[in-house]
């Protein structure tokens, strides 16, 4: 990879034209699309199943262990409290997730107490995958996974997309990647 001439060219370009950084397109002003409302149902069902399993486990443990059965009301209150907290946090997380496709990069916003925005330029995308979970498939949803060479912390997973939309996005990304080469 003959970087040498290229970089010197770039350096010259750079000193020739001064870029006004205040007029660059701003990633922070991008409008994000939110996830499909049905995806919230998928999350709820998934959480519901795990709560049921955990709840049943705790219930059985309480039933057989007499030492704890006197605290049953406190423990169930605690359990309900934890469930509510988790539901609340999941809702925030769901609300906050958003994505945007610009001409040259893809943006993904996520987080609960923090707002994280991950930006991947198309010319750094390694490959794209489309994943359908069992529950999501039932609701006609799919997940787009975008991988870079930066390791798992820099991959974007956009869940809760309409299957057709996901296919379109994948085609769009594949086209973008190809154009870069």
């Amino acid at each position, binding site marked *: *990879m*003959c*970087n*040498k001439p*290229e*970089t*010197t060219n*770039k*350096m010259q370009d*750079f000193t020739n034209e001064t*870029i006004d*950084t*205040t007029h*660059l*397109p*701003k*990633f*922070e002003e991008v409008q994000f699309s939110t996830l499909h409302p049905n995806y919230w149902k998928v999350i709820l069902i998934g959480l519901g199943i795990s709560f049921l399993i955990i709840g049943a486990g705790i219930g059985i443990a309480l039933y057989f262990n007499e030492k704890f059965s006197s605290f049953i009301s406190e423990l169930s209150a605690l359990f309900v409290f934890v469930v509510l907290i988790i539901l609340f946090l999941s809702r925030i997380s769901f609300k906050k997730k958003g994505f945007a496709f610009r001409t*040259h*990069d893809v943006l993904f916003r996520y*987080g609960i*107490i*923090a*707002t*994280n*925005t*991950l*930006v*991947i*330029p*198309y*010319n*750094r995308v*390694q*490959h*794209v*995958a*489309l*994943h*359908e*979970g*069992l529950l999501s*498939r039932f609701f006609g949803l799919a997940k787009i996974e975008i*991988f*870079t*060479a*930066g*390791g*798992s*912390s*820099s*991959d*974007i997973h956009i869940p809760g997309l309409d299957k057709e939309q996901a296919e379109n996005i*994948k085609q769009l990304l*594949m086209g973008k*990647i*190809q154009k*870069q*080469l």
Partner: protein
Amino acid sequence: MMDANFNQPQRQSIIGILVMFFYSLQAYIKALWPILVIWLFKFDEVNKIYFFGGIVSLLAITAIVSYLKYLNFTFYIDQENDEFIITEGVFNKSKTTIQLNKIQQVNINQSLIQRLAGVYELAVDTAGSNKKEVDIKAISRDLALDLKTRLLANEYNVSVDNQGANPINDVLTEINTENVEIPFIKISFLSLLKIGITSNYVKSFFIILAFFISLFDHIKQLTGKDVLEDQKIEDYVDESNVLTVIMLLFVLFFSTVVVVNLVKTIIRYFDFKISRQNGSLLLSYGLMNTKSTILKPEKVQITGITQNFFQKKMNVLELKITQATGGEVGNHKQAIEIPGCNNFEKDAILKLIFQKIPEKGVRLKPNFRKLGFSLFLTIGLPLLGYCFLSDILVEQFPMLDCLVVFYVLFIVVIQFFLFKNNRLYINNDFIILQSGAWDITNKIIKPNKIQAITVSQLFWHKNINIGSLTLHTAAGDISFQLGNFTAIKQYVNFWLYKIETSNSNWI
């Protein structure tokens, strides 16, 4: 050979069912072995019908799952788009698409099970993630070789005009065809001595500590006596001499650390030579066994320069250069360390890597809240825990309060220097992150090595306009926390502009 048709989706060899069966069985047994062991031990007590029923149903489920896996696993090459497409999954279906020119490696392997079944495994590696993206478990040898050629056909075309495609071949041809140039940098024995006595205190300290602990453990096991028992030490020395003994032990321990460090450094890096070859650097070093590494400037992702106070006075520093790790992120062998350069040698190496010496540009400082938060984590929380437990602990160790004061002072000093040294310098061509308390490291990256950027802000930091930045590269992340968010966002826009307008290859 080339007439095998990969354009239509096809399954693996039929014997693949068997291979998958054994692999799945292996996985299940790995997951369930505690239960199996318990069953075996209690074999007499367990109901035989349940036992054999369990085993039979496990086998049956495995067989069905492997058959379904086999049915649903297909692969083909999409000639129009130059993509390799794999669909797999029984319940969760997934479809992976890989651009042929993104493929870094295709490996053909054979495990014992595969050898018995007479098939091969074909694994495709891209730089995308740390695991193998595609693993075709059962494929005949001819088909595997054929597929490999087809998958890599693209790369061979590319590699005509850029010569970095296959590092191993490159290394071989370069070494064979060219006379090795006279080294332009030789790390002197004196520099190694300087580095040996001034670096890696903490690491060596823990290695020696672990060594002593295991030693005492062995002695305890052999003799049945605890060497470290408190009363014993007091038996040997007078009360008044305790302090001198502690001092003596401390000095002894510290000198052991230094000596071990020195010996390690010299054995590892003796006769360190760097020579130039076709624009690459060839490094060779080692006392017992000489190691050679090739360093391609264009593959360098992160360059780290580490120096502490003593080393600055003695004019030595350590360089750590990380190259693109290919498919295996976390493969630390890709980091190359050059110990004991002086400033002049450092500049020569940096010039080779970057074509010029990186300069520190605009400086970003973290907000004082970063110091506050680190202090809270490292002092506040432990002290809180100590408050709860102090009643019990103080009875046993009366000296504990002194230790706590010492700990707090030590951590405050460390955190203060960590905060003071944490800076991000940005200019048009380089991003330099400075960090560290005692050993101060400057990590240098070029904006076009960035793979992705994360900016992050806690909701209560919105009003005071501070936030964090993470730059993801192929050799790891670079993070700068709680800086001026407006400035960070502006630079992110600028870097995105630079990345997206240039076509230079990042690798």
